């Protein structure tokens, strides 16, 4: 938008460089000044990822028991669990990640993720928005930004949460609520799972629905003429989305997990993790741009061994299958998969045989969509308490993910009060993560 009549940031820099040569008139200078105050804008470019599956493990998953074990650390740091070899030379995972270890050659394990927020909600904010929480402004989640930048594809909502919006920071922040996620409302693992209200009710055929739509448009006109409000516009947007979804059987079919062959469902596992990841694969395959799904509870202050043995096997099976399945169907090239959590856990096992909150270093897993396979990126120190090499902060992580999606994260979006805010403030693309 800011590009229309003014100079964008890059051409401004070129003009600025020319100024040294003395070829700039006063009028040019004034125009530059104005351009400076405008929103920074960049055209989207062809990214390597067409969609994202964001798997969020709420509670703060321990990095030590999963992707960053420390077999040579003293027992109170290492914990009781064993380590296993993976498809990445020399790299080990925790003992519960049996199947994932076998597809590790498709993954980039970032072992140097770091931020300073040790409270759940603040850490979660960082890992959904790429920003530290601010008292003055709420920031949009990556899903809402993608929704804002790209809009729907193949009549499907751009941003879908399975089973529902996981937390308040997965929302639209300062952006209009039209960019909020579509929550399924029920869990795909449940028998007879169906997303409600996708098809026309009994007795209403396409032609009658068309009549109804035109009547509704007529009824809405009077109000639309005199009222303006964000809530109103957002409602209009969602009605438009609903129309396209209802009128596109293919799009609706994406939600139908029953259409999957039994063998595939078994491979993923019939539990929560399997059903959610399988549905996520169906959705990105059909056109959803960003699917967020959560699994389990990882706030293991007590008895971490029991916690991991209880939850991780199901996750492991589902996740490894997801990567294999995406690979098989050719979707992995264009689908970026990310596993993240709000933070990691303390280096030492505590008195309750658990670990507490630890944001200074933890692990994030990336795969597909232009991310390099079979790589360990960065490292933590010998006790998994600080990043040792290539510390990765949320800004750079998100800037890199946006880059894969073809979005320049330095672009500014407009917050209320004509206040341009960068999608991510000061992040850099980590080229080492890219294939």
């Amino acid at each position, binding site marked *: 938008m800011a590009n229309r009549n003014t100079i964008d940031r890059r051409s401004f820099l070129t003009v600025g460089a020319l100024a040294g040569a003395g070829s700039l008139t006063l009028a040019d200078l004034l125009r530059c000044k104005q351009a400076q105050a405008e929103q920074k804008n960049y055209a989207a470019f062809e990214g390597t990822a067409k969609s994202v599956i964001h798997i969020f493990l709420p509670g703060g998953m321990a990095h030590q028991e999963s992707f960053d074990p420390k077999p040579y650390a003293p027992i109170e740091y290492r914990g009781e669990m064993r380590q296993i070899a993976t498809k990445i030379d020399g790299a080990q995972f925790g003992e519960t990640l049996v199947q994932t270890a076998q597809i590790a050659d498709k993954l980039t394990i970032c072992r140097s993720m770091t931020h*300073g*927020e*040790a409270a759940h909600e603040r850490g979660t904010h960082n890992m959904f928005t790429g920003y*530290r929480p601010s*008292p*003055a402004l709420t920031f949009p989640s990556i899903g809402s930004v993608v929704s804002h930048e790209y809009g729907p594809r193949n009549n499907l*909502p751009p941003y879908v949460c399975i089973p529902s919006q996981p937390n*308040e920071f997965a*929302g*639209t922040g300062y952006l209009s*609520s*039209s960019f*909020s996620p*579509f*929550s399924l*409302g029920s869990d795909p693992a449940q028998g007879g799972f169906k997303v*409600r*209200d*996708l*098809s*026309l*009710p009994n007795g*209403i055929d396409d032609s*009658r629905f068309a*009549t*109804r739509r035109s*009547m*509704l448009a*007529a*009824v*809405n006109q*009077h*109000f*639309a003429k*005199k*009222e*303006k*409000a964000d*809530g*109103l516009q*957002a*409602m*209009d947007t*969602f*009605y438009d*989305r*609903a129309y396209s*979804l*209802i009128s596109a059987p293919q799009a609706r079919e994406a939600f139908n997990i029953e259409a999957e062959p039994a063998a595939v469902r078994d491979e993923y596992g019939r539990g929560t993790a399997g059903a959610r990841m399988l549905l996520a694969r169906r959705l990105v395959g059909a056109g959803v741009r960003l699917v967020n799904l959560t699994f389990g509870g990882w706030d293991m202050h007590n008895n971490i061994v029991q916690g991991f043995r209880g939850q991780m096997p199901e996750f492991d099976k589902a996740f490894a299958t997801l990567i294999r399945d995406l690979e098989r169907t050719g979707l992995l090239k264009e689908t970026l998969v990310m596993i993240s959590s709000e933070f990691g856990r303390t280096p030492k096992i505590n008195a309750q045989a658990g670990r507490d909150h630890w944001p*200074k270093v933890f692990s994030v897993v990336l795969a597909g969509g232009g991310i390099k396979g079979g790589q360990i990126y960065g490292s933590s120190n010998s006790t998994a308490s600080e990043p040792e090499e290539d510390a990765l902060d949320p800004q750079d992580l998100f800037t890199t993910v946006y880059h894969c999606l073809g979005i320049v994260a330095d672009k500014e979006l407009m917050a209320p*009060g*004509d*206040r341009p805010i960068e999608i991510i403030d000061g992040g850099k693309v980590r080229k080492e993560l890219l294939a």
Partner: protein
Amino acid sequence: MARLRVLFALLIAGVAGVVHAEDAAPAAAVTATVPAAIPPQGPAPTTGVDSLRVYPEAVNLLTSKDRQLVVVQAVYTNGLTRDVTGESTWTFANPALVRRDANTLWAAADGATELKVEFGGKMLTLPVKVEQATAPRPISFKLDVMPIFMKAGCNTGSCHGAARGKDGFRLSLFGYDPDGDHFRLTREIPGRRLDLAVPAKSLAIEKSTGAVPHTGGKRFTPESEMFKDFTGWIADNCPLDAATVPTCTSLEIYPKQAVLDGEGATQQVTVLAKYSDGTDRDVTSLALFMSNNDNSAAIVDSGLVTAGKRGEAFIMARFSTHTVGSQYIVLPKDLQFTFPQEAPVNYVDELVNEKLKKLRIAPSGICSDEVFLRRIYLDLTGLMPTYDEYTRFMTSADPEKRNQLIDELLNRKEFTELWVGYWAEWLMVRSNNQISYKSMLLYYNWLSEQIGKNVPLDKMVQNLLSASGGTFKVPQTNYYQNETDTLKVAENVAQVFMGMRIQCAQCHNHPFDRWTQDDYYSFAAFFSQIGRKGAEDYRETIIFNSGGGEVAHPVGGRVMKPKFLGGAYPELPGKDRRQLMVQWMASPENPYFASNFANRVWAHFFGNGIIDPVDDVRISNPASNPELLAELAKRFTATNYDFKQLVRDICRSHTYQRSTERNETNATDELNFAHANLRRIKAESLLDCISEVTNTRDKFQGLPLGARAVQIADGRTSTYFLTTFGRATRDTVCSCEVKMEPTLSQALHLLNGETSNDKIRGGRVVDVLLEQKVEPLQIVERLYIACFARKPTPEELEVFKPLLADPANAKVVLEDLFWSLLNSREFLFNH
């Protein structure tokens, strides 16, 4: 020439103590005297000055280190203000006592005198007192060094204030633990951080000045005062203050308010800290400044505010554990504006309009009778006016009909039910593992009875929070069964009854408010003696005063004496702590009680609170109209907490009855109630309205067929519709439990779901009217009135006429129209 004038002026200043000759008014001379104060927008007009404000109100200088930055503000008759510090004339009765450096005064000799400030024909004097003018002041760790950690950003959460510090060095977050900070600085890794022999070579100093690599970068320069104080303290052998060192008891930021004329206008602030020993200090250079709206007014480290775009900002200063703020309004330069002629109905209008006048915003006009009718029914009963109610109101010619309707609706049982619903959210009425369905129901019934009888709010809350007994026999005791953790109980009480989120202070001093950890744990101590034991029936619990149990401070383990939040320490011995607490909590002594509730009521009628969100009262989230909130609270208290009177005052006001249509001046204003807001109807009421207009009945668990959604007692009972439209689950006390954002699921449900389609068919509204031989176009009108409280416009009728030409189609067309009305934005929103 200019240089000569400077010399001349300095000479006068030095010899006579007069800053500039009283009758010599040329601007150049003024500029020369105080070069720092050249206003970027040209000299201030000297005409039209209504009054002068000089800050602080008195200058007290103690020791040679003390100083005072003085700020002079001119208030013009048109409401604008201007920083005229540099342009005003200062005269001291005894110039020998002080030394002036730009706008800062330093001690020169002991004694008392007066400073006369003149500008634009106005004059003001303020007392000046100087003591121990030549004595030095030792540098104190707590009073001088700790503030440096805050001002330089060392102890923020992203740096050394993080829970485990940063890069091996930890400070307490925002300085909540000065003794611990002293220990870590001086005793941890001895010899590393401080160099007593060459203080400037201390690692702590070299890191701060960027002389050695520092992740946090350069924080201050070797020329700065922070550098001098920090090294001075190290040179003194890093003493920890004696236990008697005064503490900062209050903080003031001046000026209190400014109305700036156009982008680029500036205003210097001055910040004064008062201490427990009665002294004060100018802490402008040590205070941390923030603006809640940089776009309209930004502030830099030195305390200079610069106006930006039109709007309003709250400028805050933080020092020690205190945060204070003042309001800045920025107007377009030379704006011409006249406020519309309109007599206010009551104090609500007067106070709202007063603010609008300051902002140069004209309010929208009064809404039509039809709009008022629908709005007041929805707001007071949660239902739409019926066709008969519509006809009665619209045909009445009584000029008092709006007020009469308000009174009538206030006495409807639906009004009570609506507010019981709100209270059930605040008190988290919900069955769960601790609270059986029976207890929950008894609790809900108790609540209904209290609201139904209009029991004065203070009595009701006192009764609720101090109750002891079985959760069956004295059902309000369920409040303490719902949450059994002492700290959580304290947090919930503060959030619901005072509108405050004190959670932050559990682990560290509240970063954006005044609450310290001491405040938090002292308040929690009121709830530390709640006993709970099983009763005969396994579903019942007995809540009683156990008389034992304390709360310990996490830093140092001190047992905390109960203290009212922001209030006094009560006399304890032999008393039930909750009894003591409620007598203060629900009383005029607690300044937050009445205003919190008034604000919650206000938010129901306007869509947002005067403080918004309503349960996030803090200094950095100020009221958009503090005078209005104070007056509502005052009247509410004065009427013995008569809830209905409060509602009546609000509903009668023009402010409530404004149109949603905006004008040029209020188009972008969202904070000052200059127009009505579109508000999505709450989930429960929306379902009730759909059932009402479709003439259908709902069945909810535990309620008879035909009960309304707003009557559902249990927060756990829900339906797909209610969940999708954002009904509160009552899991937490947060106002964010109720969600009003539109979603795709909502659109899909109204388009395809059972709520619209099945109800239209099942309720047979169209069939019945057709059977009664009502003309199809008449039915269109009936449906419009039922859903929108208005008749269709001629254009709208034109659309439906051809469709209804064939009577055989009438039923289908009318049902489709009905479906369209239920799906329309006009139906979903209160407007």
